[in-house]
C-alpha cells in the first residue's frame, strides 16, 4: 500500500515537473506545477505529516501558483511561446552546466549520507503522531519553542522583502512623475 502511494505520488511529481519545462504555454506549465505540488502533498500525508500537506496545498497550490496565473494573465503572456528564437545565446549551455552541477551535488549528498537516511533524527515523536492534533501540537512546540529564534528571523526576512518590494515599486513611479 505504501509503495503504491509512493509510486503514484512520485509519478505525479515527476510528470508535473516534466510538464513545467516542456509545455510551451505558460498557463499549462503553471498547471503542471500544481500537479507536482499535489504529489508532494500526497507524499507528506503518507509520511504522517498531514499539517504540512494542508499547508502545502493552501499556501503553494492555493496562493503562490494562483499569483503566478494572475501575473501570466494580467501581462497577457498566456500564449504559446516560440522557443526556437534565443535572445541570449549563452544561457542554454549555461543552464545545462548549472543543472548538471545541481544534480551532481544532490547525488553526492545522498551517497555520502546514505547511512543516516531512514534513521530517526529526533524532532517529532513518531509514536504518538496518530493521536488527535498530535501533528500540529508537536510541530508548534518545535517551531515556537525550540526554534523560535530562527522562526522570528524568517518572518523578519519576509517583512524586509515586502517592504523592499513596495519601496522599489514606488521609487520608479515617483521618478517618472518627477521628470
Amino acid at each position: 500500500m505504501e509503495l503504491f502511494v509512493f509510486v503514484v505520488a512520485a509519478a505525479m511529481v515527476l510528470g508535473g515537473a516534466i510538464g513545467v519545462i516542456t509545455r510551451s504555454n505558460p498557463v499549462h506549465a503553471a498547471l503542471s506545477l500544481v500537479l507536482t505540488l499535489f504529489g508532494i502533498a500526497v507524499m507528506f500525508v503518507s509520511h504522517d505529516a498531514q499539517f504540512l500537506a494542508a499547508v502545502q496545498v493552501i499556501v503553494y497550490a492555493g496562493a503562490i501558483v494562483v499569483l503566478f496565473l494572475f501575473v501570466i494573465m494580467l501581462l497577457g503572456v498566456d500564449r504559446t511561446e516560440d522557443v526556437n528564437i534565443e535572445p541570449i545565446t549563452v544561457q542554454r549551455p549555461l543552464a545545462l552546466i548549472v543543472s548538471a552541477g545541481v544534480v551532481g551535488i544532490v547525488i553526492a549528498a545522498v551517497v555520502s549520507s546514505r547511512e543516516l537516511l531512514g534513521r530517526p533524527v529526533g524532532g517529532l515523536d513518531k509514536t504518538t503522531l496518530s493521536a488527535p492534533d498530535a501533528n500540529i501540537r508537536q510541530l508548534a512546540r518545535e517551531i515556537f519553542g525550540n526554534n523560535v529564534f530562527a522562526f522570528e528571523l524568517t518572518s523578519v526576512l519576509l517583512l524586509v522583502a515586502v517592504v523592499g518590494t513596495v519601496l522599489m515599486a514606488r521609487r520608479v513611479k515617483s521618478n517618472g512623475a518627477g521628470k
Partner: protein
Amino acid sequence: MSSLFAIDPLLEDGLLWTPLLIILIKVLVVFVVGLVATMLMVWFERKVIAGMQNRVGPNKAGPWGLLQTLADGTKLFFKEDLIPERADRLVFRLAPYLVLVPAFLAFAIIPLGGDFRDGKGGIVTLFGHETRLQLADPPVGVLFALAISAIAVYGIMLAGWSSGSKYPLLGSVRASAQMVSYEAALGLSLAAVLIVSGTLSTAGIVNLQSSIGNWNIVATGFVPFFIFMIAATAELNRPPFDLVEAEQELVGGFNTEYSSIRFALFFLAEFMNTITMSALIVTLFFGGPQPISIGDTTLDIPLLPNAIEGTVWLLLKVLVFLYIYVWFRATLPRFRYDQLMDLGWRILIPASLGWFMLLAAQRVGRDAGWDQTVVTLSTAIVLIVGYVLLQLAYKVSRANREQDGASF
C-alpha cells in the same frame, strides 16, 4: 497505513469488509444528499425570493414546483454544447470539474449527525462498529476546508482564461481576486475559533459546544462570526458580492462562454458551496448537530434517538443560514468592485487579525494565570494604537498617490 485514517475509530483494526461497506454507504449518502440538497436549494431560493418580491415562483413542475430544478437540469442537458473557436479545449473542459469536485469534497468533513451529549463525542454504532456520522475526520480538520476553497479558485480562473475571449478573462480575474482576498479574512476568523476550541478536528469543535453559552459564536465574542459570514458570502460569490453574475453591468463573469451541461455544473457547484458553507458555519460557530440547550436544560425532540436528532438539529440550523443567504440576495444591492476590495482588505482583514490577537492574549493570560482585565485592557490599547497607525498609513499613502497624480 492505519495512521492515515487515525481519528475515525472505525479503522483502528485495519481494513475489513464491514467497515469498508459502511464507508461506501457514507460516501454514497454524502454524494446523494449533496445532490438532492442542491436541487432543493435552487427551488428554495427561487421560492423564498419570489415570496419576498410578491411573486409566486416556480409552481408548475411537481407539487409546489419542487421538480423545477430537475426540469431545468434536463433542459440544460439537451442544449447544444458550445466550445469557442479560440478556447483552450482541454482546460475549457476541465474547468467545470475543478469547481464541482471541491464543492463535494468540502462536505466530507462536516459532522452530519450523531450523539454529542454526555461526552459521547458523536460516536454511533453501526452494524456493531463504532463510527462517526461524517465521511472523514482528517487530522488537519477544518484546514481541509480552507485547502479545498483554495483549490476552487482554479476552476473559476481557468474557466475564464480558457474561453479565449476578453470578457470572461476579465470576469475570472475579478472573481479570483475577490476569492483570494477574502480567503485571508476567512482563515483569520477561522483561526479565532481554533484558538478557543484548541483542536482542528470538526468533531472535536462540535463536541466542545454543548450549550448556547459554549457555542463558539459566544466564546469567540461574535466578531469572528460576522467576519466569517461576510467573507464566506464573498467567497461563494453570492449577493451582495456577486460581481461574477453581474450580466447587466459587467457582461457577466468567467462563465459567459459556457453553455449546456458545463454551465449547469458551475451553477450546481455554486449552490452546493452555499450549502457546504452554511453547514461549516453551523459546525464552527453554532454547535453543529448538538441540540439547543441553555445551561442544563436541553430542548429534546421526543421519540427520536439522539443520533438522528443530531441530524435534525443540523438541518434546522443550516436551513436558517440558507434562508439568510437568500434574504441577503433579496435585500442588499451589489457592491462595486473597489468597495468590495476596500471592505476585504481595509476592514475585515485588520479586524479579524486584531480580534485574533485579543483572543490569543486572553488565552496566554489564562494559561499563565495573569489578571484577565489587565490582559484585555492592555491588548485593547495595543489594538487602538495599531488602528490609529493604520489610519495614518492610509492617509499618507493617499496623499502620496494624489501627489503622483492619481485621482482615486
